[in-house]
């Protein structure tokens, strides 16, 4: 039986260093997640008591009337986020593919630069821009306009993540497909993009989670609505807008509703992200590196 027996000195310092490093790593991890836990905990404390079935399924009531909820805002948010995903996900992934596969010339540099600038555009500016370009043309606020504002905001994150993930697909994997006589565009779609899919989905979810909580771009586009609405050409309620309105009001009962709405918003975002990962994760094979 062989057993390593280092001298006492060496063993001690190593054990100490190991413990210190492990402890530091744990501490860093705790520090990173503690704000999230604190926020979530505070939301639960302040808002959970107001969350019930009626709150989730009813539209707001006028001041002074008891009850009322955020049902129309949940539906409105889903509608707006659906429109923005339809716009942002294909455009973002398409731009990312372009940058990764053909991204050498001037146009690519321009696209990359534009994406980075777009990422830094304050969301309120995005709202004003879409207000001028869409709302003023159509002469009314709409879920459609809100969806465009949020969709544009999704593009840079998705494009840059897709590009990075595609560039990480090893060249031999692509060569294998080309060597089988698979055409170039098919190789990009069915091999490169498929290999990079988990990373691309992460990018999409990051973009989604970011815009799902945005109120500013919706102020002048979707505008908000106190009633149920499923028409994409009408002003539409959204959770962040509803929270904003309730929070700014002078009434205690509405403040309570704002907390509850914020809690619901966070739960819905986290739930959507988890659900998408679960569904997408089923396609991933065992043993994938």
């Amino acid at each position, binding site marked *: 039986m062989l057993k390593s027996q280092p001298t006492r000195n060496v063993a001690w310092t190593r054990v100490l260093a190991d413990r210190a490093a492990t402890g530091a790593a744990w501490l860093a991890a705790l520090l990173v997640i503690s704000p999230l836990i604190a926020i979530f905990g505070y939301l639960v404390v302040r808002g959970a008591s107001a969350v019930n079935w009626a709150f989730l399924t009813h539209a707001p009531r006028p001041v002074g009337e008891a009850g009322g909820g955020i049902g129309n805002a949940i539906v409105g948010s889903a509608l707006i986020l659906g429109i923005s995903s339809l716009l942002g996900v294909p455009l973002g992934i398409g731009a990312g593919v372009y940058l990764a596969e053909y991204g050498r010339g001037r146009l690519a540099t321009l696209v990359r630069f534009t994406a980075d600038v777009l990422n830094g555009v304050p969301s309120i500016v995005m709202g004003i821009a879409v207000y001028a370009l869409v709302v003023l043309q159509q002469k009314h606020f709409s879920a459609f306009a809100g969806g465009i504002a949020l969709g544009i905001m999704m593009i840079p994150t998705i494009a840059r993540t897709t590009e990075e993930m595609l560039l990480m697909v090893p060249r*031999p*994997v692509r*060569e*294998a497909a*080309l060597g*089988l006589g698979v*055409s170039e565009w098919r190789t990009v779609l069915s091999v490169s993009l498929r290999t990079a899919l988990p990373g691309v989905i992460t990018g999409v979810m990051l973009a989604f989670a970011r815009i799902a909580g945005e109120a500013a771009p919706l102020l002048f586009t979707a505008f908000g609505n106190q009633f149920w609405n499923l028409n994409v050409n009408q002003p539409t309620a959204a959770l962040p807008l509803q929270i904003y309105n309730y929070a700014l009001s002078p009434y205690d009962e509405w403040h309570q509703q704002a907390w509850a709405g914020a809690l619901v918003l966070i739960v819905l975002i986290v739930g959507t992200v988890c659900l998408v990962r679960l569904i997408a994760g089923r396609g991933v*094979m*065992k043993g*994938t590196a």
Partner: protein
Amino acid sequence: MNISVRELNAWFGRTQALYDISMEIPANQVTAIIGPSGCGKSTFVRCLNRMHETLPGTRVEGYVEVGSIEIYGNGTSPVEVRRRVGMVFQKPNPFPAMSIYDNVAAGLKLNGSYSRRELDQVVEHALRMAALWDEVKDQLKKQSGASLSGGQQQRLCIARALAVQPEVLLMDEPASALDPISTAKVEELLFQLRSQYTIVIVTHNMQQAARVADSTGFFLLGKLIEYDKTERIFTTPADKRTEDYVTGRFG
């Protein structure tokens, strides 16, 4: 399908990698390409299925005929060429996001539509030819191609190349990343495939060339120095440089 190469030149940017290669590669036998690192062996086989040009800044001039097809001719599509001239690479490169089954079926699935039954048949046949069937038949659709061992992955890549039924099989140092047992399995495979395919194999390993190849070509600094029956290359080569290389006296 025999391959006829005439005055083939290839470049990486401004660096010329191949100089005036002319070579007749007969059908249904194994032809080995040997030579020191950087001599252009890999570039040469990659010119035989138009893979060289997929790297940025590369260029090819000359004539290569596979059977009756002039592969660098006007109007010949590189995609069509690569379907007829299969390739196995140096490092096993299965598609990591695909199951074992999908890896083998990839060439067919991505090029057209086939019924399940057809695909099942092709996959089983290809895996049997690559001597991998018995090891993976119970986990075809459950496991990723990347979960196999290195030797199994390389045989999976061979099965994948065979599944599209090419006429020529190019192998770029297919065993250099494998252990001796896996290497022996791949070499065994070459013997069996020889009757149906034209095989060109690049190898660093001279014993391997001597074991598997009918003819051998010796490359040096981008030129074909000598090309003859394997036996002659290793016993009575005509060129002094070939002799120096095969006897290990070479720098």
